[in-house]
């Protein structure tokens, strides 16, 4: 039996770069084939070729053993190839059924739109995806990310997709939605659909995939059955070298109390939070998306000033009404969305790295240019930021390097207490390990670090202590030794939690 899809020696060159070089890949019906690689390895280019967005320069593509050439995405769709991108392609103002049948709405005998059939068939499709509670007449804009993804999958199935490409489908999902997605993927596999699964999270690959193909710098590296590979092997294939440890946590002895928070309130997401942090500690803050983790951090940083409660910094009561108040107290906050909240993208590496200490860098009327340049150079060196120079615009750098610049900006302010929100989201394995090493060594130098993360292995691997948040409250605390993935997930989710978990993401 021929493969559902087979790529032979595919190449694609963009001006100045070989994005794909002689890459072969195939998917069988009823198979989940994971595609792994660091950012820039060529995964996106490959799926864009499969879905008809790009045309390859060389090589051959076969569907059911027959050579095909797509000149536009419509042709790929017609042959049964559907892609679910990270940024979902739905119309928020239209209903679920309208989205599912966008462009191929069923017609009545008279030629008018047949809403009844559209709704009934949408219902059937969603039922097969176990989304029985999802109303087909609801506006898509009111749904959470998990449900939108289900609508997107239903839309693909409505066109009889035989090959489904999932591009980082879990990046924005809560862990509950992730479980449901996995069920859907398994179901589709049983039905004979072929799936290409792209993710940075290796544990998902092991849980879900049958085979895994690794790309690196546009080159094909290997294809192996998942049952025959180990995680270190995959990482080595992706990074091209051995990463001794993804979570290089050093042992530290917690010092004096840096921060003490009592009964902190800020409606609606922070409700009566109390905890303390000591110098040298990394405290992991886990919880579902929407549990109030980021909001609580932003309360501590003065971005969303508290309604009530007390914050003590080094034993002294502190009033934090704005980020500049927080900075004066030695608090730094590395936000989760580095594009939106972390970087000034039209600015250079130099200008970004001095931004948090600009006022201290002034000599006479002017910014001390020499001091700024040497700060930028030392940031680049300390964090191993890969950039052609300090005058490079930050928007031209990769995600991992951008994240390092945001960290550099805050380290320049010499904080005593650092809040990092999803420090490694969307960053490839190599850069991830580097950022972990950096956090660990900062803690060893006496910095107190509050690390918010949805990546449980990261929380478990990097934290001295773990706090779990649910519905705006701290509901559990575990030491490094006693914490397990199950305990954290259990504390983060209980019955009736869905109201909070379903907060739609903007």
């Amino acid at each position, binding site marked *: 039996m021929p493969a559902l899809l087979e790529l032979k020696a595919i190449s694609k060159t963009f001006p100045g770069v070989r994005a794909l070089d002689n890459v072969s890949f195939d998917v069988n019906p009823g198979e989940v084939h994971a595609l792994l690689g660091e950012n820039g390895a060529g995964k996106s280019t490959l799926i864009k070729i499969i879905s008809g967005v790009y045309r390859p320069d060389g090589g051959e593509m076969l569907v059911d053993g027959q050579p095909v050439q797509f000149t536009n995405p419509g042709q790929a769709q017609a042959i049964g190839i559907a892609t679910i991108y990270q940024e979902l392609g739905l119309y928020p103002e239209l209903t679920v059924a309208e989205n599912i049948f966008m462009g191929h709405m069923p017609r009545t005998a008279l030629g008018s739109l047949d809403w009844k059939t559209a709704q009934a068939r949408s219902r059937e499709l969603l039922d097969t995806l176990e989304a029985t509670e999802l109303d087909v007449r609801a506006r898509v804009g009111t749904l959470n990310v998990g449900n939108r993804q289900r609508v997107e999958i239903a839309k693909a199935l409505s066109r009889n997709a035989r090959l489904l490409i999932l591009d980082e489908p879990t990046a924005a999902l809560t862990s509950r939605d992730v479980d449901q997605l996995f069920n859907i993927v398994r179901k589709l596999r049983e039905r004979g659909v072929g799936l290409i699964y792209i993710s940075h999270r290796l544990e998902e690959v092991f849980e879900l995939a049958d085979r895994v193909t690794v790309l690196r710098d546009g080159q094909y590296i290997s294809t192996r059955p998942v049952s025959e590979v180990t995680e270190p092997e995959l990482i080595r294939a992706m990074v091209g070298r051995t990463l001794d440890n993804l979570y290089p946590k050093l042992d530290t002895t917690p010092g004096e109390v840096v921060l003490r928070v009592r009964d902190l309130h800020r409606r609606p997401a922070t409700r009566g939070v109390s905890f303390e942090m000591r110098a040298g500690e990394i405290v992991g803050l886990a919880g579902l998306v929407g549990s109030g983790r980021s909001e609580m951090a932003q309360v501590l940083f003065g*971005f969303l000033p508290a309604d009530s409660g007390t914050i003590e910094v080094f034993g002294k009561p502190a009033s934090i009404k704005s980020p500049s108040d927080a900075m004066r107290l030695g608090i730094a906050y590395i936000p989760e969305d580095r594009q*939106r909240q972390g970087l000034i993208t039209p600015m250079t590496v130099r200008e970004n790295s001095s931004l*948090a200490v600009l006022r201290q860098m002034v000599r006479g009327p*002017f*910014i001390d240019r020499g001091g700024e340049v040497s700060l930028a150079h030392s940031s680049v060196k300390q964090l191993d930021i890969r950039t052609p120079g300090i005058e490079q615009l930050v928007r031209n750098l990769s995600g991992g390097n951008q994240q390092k610049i945001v960290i550099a900006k805050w380290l320049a302010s010499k904080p005593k207490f650092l809040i990092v929100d999803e420090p490694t989201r969307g960053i490839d394995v190599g850069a991830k390990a580097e950022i972990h090493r950096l956090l660990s060594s900062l803690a060893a130098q006496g910095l107190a670090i509050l690390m918010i993360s949805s990546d449980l292995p990261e929380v478990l691997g990097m934290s001295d202590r773990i706090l779990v948040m649910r519905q705006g409250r701290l509901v559990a605390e575990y030491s490094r030794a006693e914490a397990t993935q199950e305990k954290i997930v259990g504390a983060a989710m209980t019955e009736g939690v869905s109201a909070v978990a379903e907060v739609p993401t903007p």
Partner: protein
Amino acid sequence: MSTLTVSRQLRAPNPFLILLNSQEAVLVIALVVVTLFVTALNPRFLEFGNISDILSNCAYVAVAAIGTTMVIVSGNIDISMGSALGVCATIAGTLSVNNVPIPLVFLLTVLAGGLIGLANGFLVAYLRIPAIVVTLGMSSILKGGLIIATQGKWIYNMPPGFALSQGNLAGIPNPVWIMFILIAGFWLYLRYTAQGREVYAVGGNTEAARLSGINTRRVILRVFILNGLLVGVASILFATKFSSIQSNVPSGYELLVITSAVIGGVSILGGTGSVIGALLGAIFLETTRTSLPFIQIGGQPVRAEWFQAIQGTLILLAILIDIARRRRMR
């Protein structure tokens, strides 16, 4: 696309492309081309007196374009400069004919501009009303208020010391001195001071700027106040050009100022741009306007109305280039 990013970093920089990426360089080239072209048609164009006139005539635009540069870089817009200019010019004229000492007249005029800027800035920064709405409203209020207060009467017989724009120092007209001094000062301010850097940070990404400890509201308020003060200065240059002041609002002034800044490379999306570019933009516009009567088509000089169309084309072209440039960056 990260792969494309890599290619951009690896490719050796092409000097020609770098030049084209600098709007200032493009404008200088355009200025030379227009000047040579018009001079070839009519050699009188390049006489010293004419060049001096061009610079002197565009000063009141260039000075306000400094303020507009800051406002646009900070991610905002001001379309009330025309009305503010009319109001300030009328205040200057009225005070001077009522025997207020001339230095005090000038000071109060600039402060009046600052006050208008303060009102705009407060509404934008602290009440969070979009700048286009605030300044549109302000423009209407000022325009209406001015006509109610003066009935559009002309002001004559200003004292002799009032005619600042008509004098010169070392053979260079006063407005040119004032323009170059302010441009130099604000160039240093925006490029080398912390306050200047903050303007770019707020326009580049307001949320990231605020999370970096910058008081973004104060930055926006400050930008609008400075803009207002500069419009005040521009209004003095404008009011002292002639021996009478018509107490109403000059039409199309704000478009002239915004066009100067935008063709000078100030991105309408905020975050980038320089006052040098805005100055070159103002000079280029004035050169184009002045050159029209020097060009003969079919024995007739080009009609002045063409300038409106040329100006409109230039602003659209400049925005198109800006957008294309941003796309390429991605």
